[in-house]
């Protein structure tokens, strides 16, 4: 299909391009940015007047609940939700049931995702068999099947000898190991240590749960030379450790989720289980440090940490409620809000959800590595068109994810979010188009 996205403001963070231009697309690739070739005959046009045309978002953390937890989220519903959020590439952790520790499972998942044509799917393989933490998986086979890295999802490796061996083995083949810095013994609580958890009588997770694990991981990276991506930093002390490790030149990257970037433990209010998240929401000083870390590049990527949870698993006393929130549809808006609040320029803001996460994935993207998260002539046509003007109210009723739980529900926060995705283009085809602004509110209307 030949598609012309016309009259938009094209922002490509990787190249620094920011200009009014048309984007001509044919056969899944970007043919021209600027003026379409004279002989270009589009079959479809998207009018992007007043809108921003950017690379499709790359989300490094979208938990799919299929296979094993289809009652909480189907591949179809969650990939559609991703497309609605402007996301064209997503990375999923291996903690499905069964976990992604066999090439056949990975191939099946990739095959099904391809057929849905909503979003590119890049699975992480299990680092250890069954995520049990005691035997390595067949990384060469899994990577051939399409895994872009190896991870334990939220299951920490308790055995540090095994962790070191896993890093050595992965480094042999140049694979990146994705780790949640979380000490298994210290991270058993349900809220962050601090005045709120103490007052509400909730068991708590101290900052040391993150820093002890970070110290261990950083030391093992130093020893093995393995490339590690740190998932979901949550504390100021954690950011400081990562900053030092990067200054030393260690091959480390890191991400933070939109929840930790915008909320604190005070938002738990009267035991609101939508605020039951992992990592737990920490304090103002932590949130500020995470925001600064994301701005200065200590933290490479902003992720949605999308995790659809069924009502039955959420409508429980706070500690019994399953942690997680549906968030992939909100990723762009949460990035924009952070950029606006902290005075981060538009290009830098968008980089954290496009070219920077693509850089984290690096060579594991294969042929896509040169153009994923970017707008490049001749490159793959993954594009997001959004209107920066309207603010909108998040509501469980309008979420496309099968999970209906979000800590950003307007009824709870009283805060509207900026930016509205109007269209998403995946490999030259339209994977999402917004209905005529049903839930969007012009700014200033409230």
């Amino acid at each position, binding site marked *: 299909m030949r598609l012309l996205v016309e009259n938009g403001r094209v922002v490509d963070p990787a190249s620094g391009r920011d200009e009014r231009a048309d984007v001509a697309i044919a056969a899944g690739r970007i043919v021209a940015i600027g003026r379409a070739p004279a002989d270009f005959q589009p079959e479809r046009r998207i009018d992007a007047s007043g809108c921003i045309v950017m690379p499709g978002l790359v989300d490094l953390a979208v938990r799919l609940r299929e296979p094993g937890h289809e009652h909480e989220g189907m591949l179809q519903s969650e990939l559609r939700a991703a497309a609605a959020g402007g996301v064209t590439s997503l990375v999923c952790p291996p903690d499905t049931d069964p976990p992604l520790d066999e090439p056949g499972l990975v191939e099946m998942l990739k095959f099904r995702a391809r057929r849905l044509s909503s979003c590119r799917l890049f699975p992480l393989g299990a680092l250890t068999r069954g995520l049990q933490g005691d035997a390595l998986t067949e990384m060469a086979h899994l990577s051939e099947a399409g895994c872009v890295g190896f991870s334990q999802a939220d299951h920490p490796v308790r055995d540090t000898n095994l962790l070191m061996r896993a890093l050595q083995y992965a480094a042999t083949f140049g694979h990146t190991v994705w780790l949640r810095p979380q000490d298994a013994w210290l991270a058993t609580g349900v809220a962050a240590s601090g005045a709120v*958890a103490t007052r509400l009588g909730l068991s708590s997770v101290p900052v040391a749960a993150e820093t002890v694990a970070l110290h261990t991981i950083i030391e093992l990276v130093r020893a093995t030379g393995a490339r590690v991506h740190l998932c979901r930093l949550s504390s100021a002390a954690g950011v400081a450790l990562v900053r030092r490790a990067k200054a030393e030149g260690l091959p480390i990257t890191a991400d933070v989720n939109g929840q930790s970037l915008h909320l604190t433990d005070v938002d738990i209010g009267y035991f609101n289980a939508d605020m039951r998240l992992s990592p737990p929401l920490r304090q103002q000083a932590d949130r500020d440090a995470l925001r600064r870390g994301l701005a200065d590049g200590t933290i490479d990527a902003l992720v949605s940490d999308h995790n659809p949870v069924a009502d039955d698993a959420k409508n429980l*006393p706070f500690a019994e409620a399953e942690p997680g929130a549906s968030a992939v549809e909100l990723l762009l808006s949460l990035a924009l809000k952070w950029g606006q609040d902290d005075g981060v320029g538009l290009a830098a803001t968008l980089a954290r959800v496009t070219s920077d996460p693509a850089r984290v994935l690096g060579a594991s993207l294969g042929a896509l590595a040169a153009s994923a998260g970017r707008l490049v002539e001749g490159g793959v046509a993954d594009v997001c068109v959004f209107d920066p003007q309207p603010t909108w109210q998040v509501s469980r009723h309008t979420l496309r994810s099968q999970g209906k739980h979000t800590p950003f529900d307007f009824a709870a926060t009283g805060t509207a979010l900026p930016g509205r995705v109007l269209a998403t283009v995946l490999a030259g085809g339209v994977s999402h188009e917004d209905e005529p602004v049903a839930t969007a509110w012009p700014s200033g209307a409230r």
Partner: protein
Amino acid sequence: MLSRRNPQLNAHGELIHLLSIEGLPREVLVHILDTAGTFLSVNEREVKKVPLLRGKSVFNLFFENSTRTRTTFEIAAKRLSADVINLDIARSSTAKGETLLDTIANLSAMHADMFVVRHGESGAPHLIARHCASHVHVVNAGDGRHAHPTQGLLDMYAIRHYKTDFSQLTVAIVGDIVHSRVARSDIHALTTLGVPEVRVVGPRTLVPADLRAMGVRVCHDMAEGMRDADVIIMLRLQNERMSGAMLPSAAEFAKTFGLTPDKLALARPDAIVMHPGPINRGVEIDSSVADGQASVILPQVTFGIAVRMAVMSIIAGNEA
């Protein structure tokens, strides 16, 4: 921020549920204590009944075992002429896999007027109050580590009874604060009623420094905690915490933070000693102190009935 309104109060600021002492205005607490005073005499009459809750159904929902608290709620409801239904949920529906909210929906369909809830998880009564029919009132009878508001109120009743004026007092709460819902409710009540010095006393494993944010002085030394105290509230040390990562042994706790006559001697000569019960003699409290002059442990139990009558009659009279 609609959902941030204190869920215990209606739009007129009247008490419709009792979930926690936190956030309740001083006048509400004083009103409960004053009302309890009028019920105290009912309990001494030959016919110990008033008709305030006649025709109302009070369901005691105990998801966690407790004989004493359930009995005092049952007595209080019966003296208000309510019909009382005791449900030992720990051994019935949830054991069959029914969810908490399904249980509540079923009982609401039986036209309950009030739920008295004890649950092992902090915040469970809030969840119930948020999901039950609007005419149903919820009283928290203890949730996890979070709150035990009627115990807090009866402790305030006892303190007011013996000490009259809250504004001159030093109160020490001793023992396992971090796991104690009683301690949290006492702290909120004491600070709301204007007690200038509330101390929490115990080892660092059981008394986190974060408690300062609740307006208390944190003491890790028993002598410092006891010095010139007017009121000493000893907490029960749960059996499962007597040895492990929190404490090495009950004997060592008795030696360091148990209330013995010599430690009590550091407090003011007219100090009173309280305990929510059941007591572990020889662990957190020496027998000679529990049975001694300063102890008001048994009067606390008597006040507890009147305070629970007051709470139930007040919330039943207010509409959501």
